[in-house]
């Protein structure tokens, strides 16, 4: 896949400049060094940060405000959010549809109909502000917690802001990495059947390197190579999901990171303790969704998760759509954000928690999310006994077009996939079957059915009823 062969003295290839418009000669040298490492994994993707010089002031200002103006606990949205929502009403149909003419947004907040994943999945054009310039659009896809296959529009500028948020999280643990073109800032660890594997440099981080790897035996010449590669990368910190981190321990990966940041799914206490013991650094759990970006990080004092961005309002709603009483459990719902293509109004995340003020004297005044119940991790079993993660299944299903799905492995090992089609779009049941069989192996019993009744149901999109003792 990698088409940038190293020729001493050669200029930075045009394609790389398109991916990384601000890459320098030093940055490119570092990137080549990573890509050409003899122990490197099988690279299968090329990607840049796409940040341009015009994006930098926005990201810089965002960083300054993030560090300087922390959100505070409040039972109602702050004035800045009310103002932002009023502004968005003039630009976005989805906002207008929820905000009748003449509404007093602050007073009638609880009556505003929340956005759902279905709105993002099926009607992104209704959310898109009328003045949004889509020439910089990039997209990420996700299957998420409710089974809605979804493509999420994003802007490289917003992704740059996420790096500022990462710096903030690290700073709260006393970690201040020096980013430069002579070192790798971060290695992202996953352990999936199949995923993208690539290297990049971040211009926002002074050309520091970034590597995304997959601890799957298929991706490496040998496990020893993986050990050597990670050791040579010597990243300032790791990001990864709990499955990847567990594999990292299993493979005996040695490293001396300043921190390990866990994303994508809830990090269990036992794994956190094990990682801290083994790698002797803070292990920080975070809460983030593709639609919203990073939302919270585990507080250094151990009391829940602190809300991270200062441009969102997080509330917990009951089933009727009313905010729950202070400190009660509810569905975490987000308003605001910095994605110019996806402004969110009371967006129901499908995750649950209690929102409470921070303890007295806390350095970060942001509200805390406690008893967080995020997406669990469901694993399935392939014909040859190997574990297939829900992320793998999600990726396989996302190749196909439908509104919603439910994937179940029954106690006898057979698979049942219910698909809610998009009206007017036929379901490619054979294609879905084929994609899933590529993960589970030939001979796997599988049934794909169309099921319109999934609409509006609160279903677990992934479920495994397998008897592990069989």
């Amino acid at each position, binding site marked *: 896949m990698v088409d940038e062969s190293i020729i001493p003295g050669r200029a930075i290839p045009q394609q790389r400049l398109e991916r990384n418009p601000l890459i320098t000669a030093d940055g490119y040298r570092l990137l080549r060094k990573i890509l050409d490492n003899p122990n490197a994994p099988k690279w299968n993707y090329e990607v840049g940060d796409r940040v341009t010089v015009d994006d930098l002031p926005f990201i810089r200002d965002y960083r300054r405000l993030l560090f300087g103006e922390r959100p505070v606990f409040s039972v109602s949205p702050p004035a800045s959010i009310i103002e932002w929502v009023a502004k968005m009403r003039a630009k976005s149909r989805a906002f207008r549809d929820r905000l009748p003419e003449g509404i007093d947004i602050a007073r009638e907040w609880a009556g505003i109909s929340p956005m759902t994943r279905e709105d993002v999945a099926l009607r992104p054009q209704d959310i898109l502000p009328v003045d949004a310039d889509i020439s910089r659009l990039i997209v990420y896809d996700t299957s998420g917690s409710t089974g809605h296959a979804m493509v999420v529009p994003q802007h490289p500028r917003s992704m740059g802001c996420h790096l500022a948020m990462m710096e903030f999280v690290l700073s709260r643990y006393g970690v201040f990495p020096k980013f430069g073109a002579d070192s790798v800032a971060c290695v*992202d660890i996953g352990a999936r059947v199949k995923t993208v594997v690539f290297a990049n440099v971040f211009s926002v981080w002074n050309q520091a390197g970034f590597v995304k790897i997959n601890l799957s035996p298929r991706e490496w010449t040998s496990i020893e190579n993986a050990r050597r590669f990670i050791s040579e990368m010597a990243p300032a910190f790791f990001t990864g999901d709990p499955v990847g981190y567990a594999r990292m321990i299993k493979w005996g990966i040695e490293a001396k990171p300043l921190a390990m940041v866990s994303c994508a799914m809830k990090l269990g206490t036992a794994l956190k303790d094990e990682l801290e013991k083994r790698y002797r650094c803070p292990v920080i759990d975070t809460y983030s969704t593709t639609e919203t970006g990073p939302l919270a990080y585990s507080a250094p004092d151990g009391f829940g998760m602190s809300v991270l961005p200062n441009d969102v309002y997080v509330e917990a709603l009951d089933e009727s*759509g009313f905010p729950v009483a202070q400190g009660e459990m509810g569905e975490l719902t987000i308003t605001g954000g910095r994605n110019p293509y996806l402004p969110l109004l009371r967006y129901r995340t499908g995750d649950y928690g209690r929102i409470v003020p921070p303890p007295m004297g806390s350095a970060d005044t942001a509200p805390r999310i406690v008893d967080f119940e995020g997406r669990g991790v469901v694993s399935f079993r392939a014909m040859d006994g190997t574990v297939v993660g829900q992320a793998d299944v999600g990726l396989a299903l996302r190749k196909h077009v439908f509104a919603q799905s439910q994937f179940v492995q029954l106690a006898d090992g057979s698979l049942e996939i219910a698909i809610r089609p998009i009206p007017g779009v036929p379901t490619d049941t054979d294609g879905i079957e084929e994609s899933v069989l590529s993960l589970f192996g030939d001979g796997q019993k599988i049934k794909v059915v169309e099921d319109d009744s999934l609409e509006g149901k609160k279903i677990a999109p992934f479920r495994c009823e397998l008897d592990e003792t069989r």
Partner: protein
Amino acid sequence: MKHTNGPSIDRLTRRLTECPADFFREPVIAGRGIVHVPAVVNDLIVDLGGAPPRGTDALAFKRSSADSRNLLQTVMVAAWLLGDEFFVEEKRFATPAFNWLNNELAAVSKLVSAELFVSDPDRREELARMCLKALRLLPEGETKEHAEDRLGALDSVARDKLAKETAKEEERARKLREAMAAKEAAESAAKAGREW
């Protein structure tokens, strides 16, 4: 002989300006709130000469979703309007009045805040004209054509529908779909971690 002409628009819009603040107290939704809208509608229907709603009709204004608030408040304002002596004395509007409250206010309540039907002259006139149309009455001193033209000019639901159907909106939606499909096939940008 019964009226075919109704009260004047001026009379009805004036009544709307006099809508008591109590009608804007929080409607009961999912067990919270103060004003029981089903009870208010029940009393209104009896005042208009009908029998109290039964069966599913009796449950029509019982709501469990917080986003029903504006609908229920709009129903309250409309109920205040229907309490005008003209309608009450006639004793023949119970059925069309119930149908209007139950079937037609939902669409407009998504677009217009209930308070505007009291505070804004155009929205007051719109509600008054909607009400007369639902009861098959003509505003006093107006022809059918004039009444229809005037309501057409004020109609929030029709205006919204038109806006949604405009070629510009369609074109924008198409462009986004195309851009998203094209970008899906292409690469995105690197992230510091999954979902970050």
